[in-house]
């Protein structure tokens, strides 16, 4: 069930195949050094004390707790003890703050896809990954991507929570029903890498995986040309837009019962509630599934839900179409 083409040799560290992998590993190795130092310090001290201060003779009997114990200090009043406590509070605190800033900074990079990233739509379902390229190529449990190109994954789930995990890229992001989550990577080495589902999702969770195939640009172009495709995502979305009747209300001009969607993507929409909302993937998805959640200003709340009428794949296509309407050169299309 695992791609047999993947090498099966013993490693103690995963391969690095993305731009962030090396950066994550540098931080990881720093943590290893810090940990080995502190664990070593504790182990050596404990070992040393156990040997040096081992009990050599039976010492004085313990006085009853009810009796005054002259020799016992009541508290650590000694300045030395206090200094020691401050010392081993401040030093670890300082080190952890360095680690915190380093980790948070890198996490920021890992959470923000570059603006020029190619988009791939990912739909997780029990127990498979469905991946769609903007050109309409569809894949199952396999994703072909070009090397040295940032790839943005826009992901959702049809059922339970899954998690898109590519160890060689150091990328993991939960795939959550009811919303879009985003991950990105830029592969650096052509080859094949494991794709796992990392979030437990039911019976066949362990086999909900596959591979990411990273290809040189020419190989990738060849693959794109040869891959099974019907029409581009936006074209499929356009077809669906008419098929399920979106077009009867959302016309090209603001003459329908709903607002026109031409040029809408990426703008701020005024709502009946007085608020404004950015028209992005999440808002479009919500408007298709829960139309009553946010009502556009000036339009009656009459849109029915399309839950059950359109699949997650279909919603992705509709969004791709609505996005294409935002591009000025395509705004003229019906």
């Amino acid at each position, binding site marked *: 069930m695992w791609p047999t083409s993947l090498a099966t040799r013993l490693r103690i560290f995963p391969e690095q195949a993305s731009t962030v992998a090396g950066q994550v590993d540098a931080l990881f190795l720093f943590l290893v050094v810090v940990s080995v130092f502190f664990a070593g310090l504790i182990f050596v001290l404990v070992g040393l004390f156990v040997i040096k201060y081992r009990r050599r003779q039976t010492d004085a009997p313990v006085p009853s707790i009810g009796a005054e114990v002259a020799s016992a200090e009541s508290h650590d009043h000694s300045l030395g003890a206090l200094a020691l406590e401050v010392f081993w509070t401040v030093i670890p605190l300082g080190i952890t703050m360095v680690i915190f800033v380093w980790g*948070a900074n890198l996490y920021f990079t890992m959470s923000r896809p570059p603006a020029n990233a190619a988009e791939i739509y990912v739909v997780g379902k029990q127990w498979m990954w469905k991946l769609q390229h903007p050109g309409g190529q569809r894949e199952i449990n396999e994703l072909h991507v070009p090397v040295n190109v940032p790839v943005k994954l826009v992901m959702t789930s049809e059922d*339970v929570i899954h998690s898109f995990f590519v160890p060689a890229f150091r990328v993991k992001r939960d795939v959550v029903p009811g919303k879009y989550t985003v991950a990105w990577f830029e592969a650096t080495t052509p080859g094949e890498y494991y794709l796992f589902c990392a979030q437990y999702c039911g019976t066949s969770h*362990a086999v909900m995986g596959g591979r990411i195939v990273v290809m040189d640009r020419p190989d990738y172009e060849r693959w794109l040309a040869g891959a099974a495709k019907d029409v581009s995502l936006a074209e499929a979305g356009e077809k669906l837009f008419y098929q399920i009747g979106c077009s009867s209300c959302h016309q090209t001009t603001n003459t329908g019962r709903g607002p026109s969607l031409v040029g809408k993507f990426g703008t701020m929409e005024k709502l009946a509630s007085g608020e404004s909302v950015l028209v992005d993937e999440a808002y479009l998805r919500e408007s298709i599934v829960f139309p009553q959640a946010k009502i556009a200003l000036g339009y009656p709340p009459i849109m029915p839900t399309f839950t059950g009428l359109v699949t997650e794949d279909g919603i992705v296509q509709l969004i791709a179409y609505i996005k294409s309407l935002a591009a000025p050169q395509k705004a003229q299309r019906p």
Partner: protein
Amino acid sequence: MTTAGAGTNYLNADYRVRSWLLTTDHKRIALLYLVSISVFFAIGGALAGVIRLNLLTPYGSLVQAETYNKLFTMHGITMIFFFLIPSIPAVLGNFLVPLMIGARDLAFPRINLLSWYIYVVGGTFTIVAAVTGGVDTGWTFYTPYSSTFANTNVMLTALGVFITGFSSILTGLNFVVTIHKMRAPGLTWSRLPLFIWAHYATSLIMLLGTPVVAITILLVALERGLGIGIFDPKLGGDPILFQHLFWFYSHPAVYIMILPSMGVISEVVACFSRKRVFGYTVVAVSSLTIAIVGFLVWGHHMFVSSQSMYAGMIFSFLSFLVAIPSAIKVFNWTATMYKGSIDLRTPMLYALGFIGLFTIGGLTGIFLATLAVDVHVHDTYFVVAHFHYIMVGGAIMGYLGGLHFWWPKITGKLYSEAWGRIAAITLFIGFNLTFFPQFIVGILGMPRRYHVYPPEFQFLNILSTAGATVLAIGYVLPLFYLTWSLLKGERAGANPWRATGLEWEADSPPPTFNFDRTPVVTAEAYAYPSLPEASRG
């Protein structure tokens, strides 16, 4: 101080079964818990054994995927809710809190008995759920899988966990009131044993945290039973909301498991080094700090969940803060041993084992608190290894160390020191052999909860399973020599370790009402006399 009616103690006061089942004596209730949690530990351990056997090969050769998923779910539920959470508080805490503060019993003896019955009822529901089909949601019950998609015994199991929560709440309540109101004259807060401080902090978490998980489970039941949309987006709910609510309890729950262990370690290290605990005040305050800050770090379980990036940063920051008091404790225990008179008896070996394993568990926790690194190791075997180092390496080593330390007090008998040491060392070695390879296989990317896995992970999994057999031997050994000690062990006397502390002034085993007159405390805890120069190394 010995009792007048010598020979009569809490064990032989009455032999009838009803005298045990209707007892309100905190010491007898502690033993009821000891027996019941041992049953759950055996069940949970056996489930883990099957899991490890299945993972010997990459192909899931032993059990089907459905069965495997139920195995790890029930292993987690049994170990966490029915063994680890009650372990030290309900057994050692129940037995020792009144003894250590010079009281005759807990503040609410009947509520204490009620706690045990609630625990048994909850446990029974869970066992019934297990034998009538089991449950496969993982102990985390993540929605919408648990609320909508799973078709196993979710409701029955959840009900069991829900019920058992009340046992935890009542125990916490009992401890808080007892520690506040029933301390012997002269036993001021600054003289309290650190075991009591740890239990005080733990009780606060039990009181404040457990109701949240109870409500969360109720919400899952409402969605699953009545279709009320709370977590399932198809019904208009939010699946991430569940994770917030769940971890708001379940992260502090980790401290319910580890804080009492830390209390045990403070007592044991002081006794077998014959020194007061270094930085008593700092160690006591760090328990409270952990309990409080521990409530503010739940979001570190959700760095890849789609939680906001900025929320992730705040939770990461707070998680680093909560690591500091734990580090301080480790440094203080180490400093306590400095210039001590160290005797490597069985309890001390367990305590040293705790320090070693907890240090590794704590340091790998730093990896998980680090945002960018967590993204890679989250939901892999790295996490599995980390929390076993804390919850098994830490909590169970502490529990067994405490059980060995106070065994003479509880039973009045001594166990075989040689066998005790062999078991402690076997456990330490077996534990590391089992769980250290899991760090590596996790870094390589093996996700947790996988019934089958790519073949290159097999070698490390074989190592882990081999280690688990050593670990199993370490767990079975005490069963034998402790039982033997119960039947044939040498009489212990009131204070075999020559330890300080009020519990050692009572007879072993203590009489039903602990002390024949209320003790008066005039000294701090750990008033070990200064060592003569000659005894130093």
